[in-house]
């Protein structure tokens, strides 16, 4: 269960960012912003390595003392960042991958919506519903 989910456009501005409401929501925005550097590093490192199969899933970007940050980049250079609680029972890699898969599928549907202009903030209710399903439930 994620604590914060963000979708970042090719030009590195957020298309959608949502976190479980706590006192310091700004901290999550900052965490996501700093994780972008790590994402760039991973993309260029994979490019130089000239691996045959470059995966879209980037894996654990970096751990802080409270949170772990995972990244995923699509072929259209849109980045997804998920922040999970470290104290949570360690989520297996497969679960994180499936969360990214669902995000990617939903984002593709948003992209194909003729009323959506690429580059605008994502306002689709279906997308929001899917993200709510993945976030930590707050009573």
């Amino acid at each position, binding site marked *: 269960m994620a604590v914060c989910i963000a979708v970042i456009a090719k030009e590195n501005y957020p298309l959608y960012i949502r976190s479980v409401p706590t006192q310091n929501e700004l901290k999550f925005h900052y965490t996501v912003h700093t994780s972008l550097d790590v994402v760039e590093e991973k993309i260029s490192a*994979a490019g130089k390595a000239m691996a045959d199969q*470059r*995966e*879209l899933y980037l894996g654990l970007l970096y751990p802080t003392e409270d949170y772990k940050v995972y990244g995923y980049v699509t*072929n259209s250079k849109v980045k997804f960042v998920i922040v999970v609680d470290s104290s949570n029972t360690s989520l297996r890699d497969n679960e994180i991958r499936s969360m990214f898969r669902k995000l990617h*599928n939903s984002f*593709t549907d948003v*992209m*194909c919506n003729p009323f959506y202009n*690429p580059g605008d903030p994502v306002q689709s209710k279906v997308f929001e519903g899917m993200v709510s399903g993945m976030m930590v439930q707050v009573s």
Partner: protein
Amino acid sequence: MADEVLFDFLHMEMVSHVYKEQRSSKGELDSKDRAVCVSILEGMGFRVGQGLIERMTRDSPSFKDELDMMKFICKDFWTQVFRKQIDNLRTNHQGTYVLQDNKFVLLTQLSSGKQYLEEAPKYLAYSCGLVRGALSNLGLESVVTAEVSLMPSCESCNIA
């Protein structure tokens, strides 16, 4: 199955609709109006190309370089949209690529020779936009132009 021709017919109607719209407001089409029609069709293709690429590259791994992306366009993208592959791809390795299709699906119904050659560009505008939108979503800024010398074969040249 009849689904293959559905898009062909829709495209023909789209082109004639855009031209009719322009004509109804002016009465006679001059070259500036024709340019407007072409850019409307190209704009439509652009948006569709972006969405299509998002869907098609969902499962494939990242592209290594520009040439890889062009090969994807020539093979997978062209097959999905036009049910065949590009026949010939040439490049000068400095950013210009020429894609040649010897039997372009949207032109086969028009003629197979020199007849209606002047009308061909109208029917290529949407496809140019399609390629431009696809490339733009993959991260490549480009200019896409198409030319027809002998129907139904056409060449598209893009400069990235």
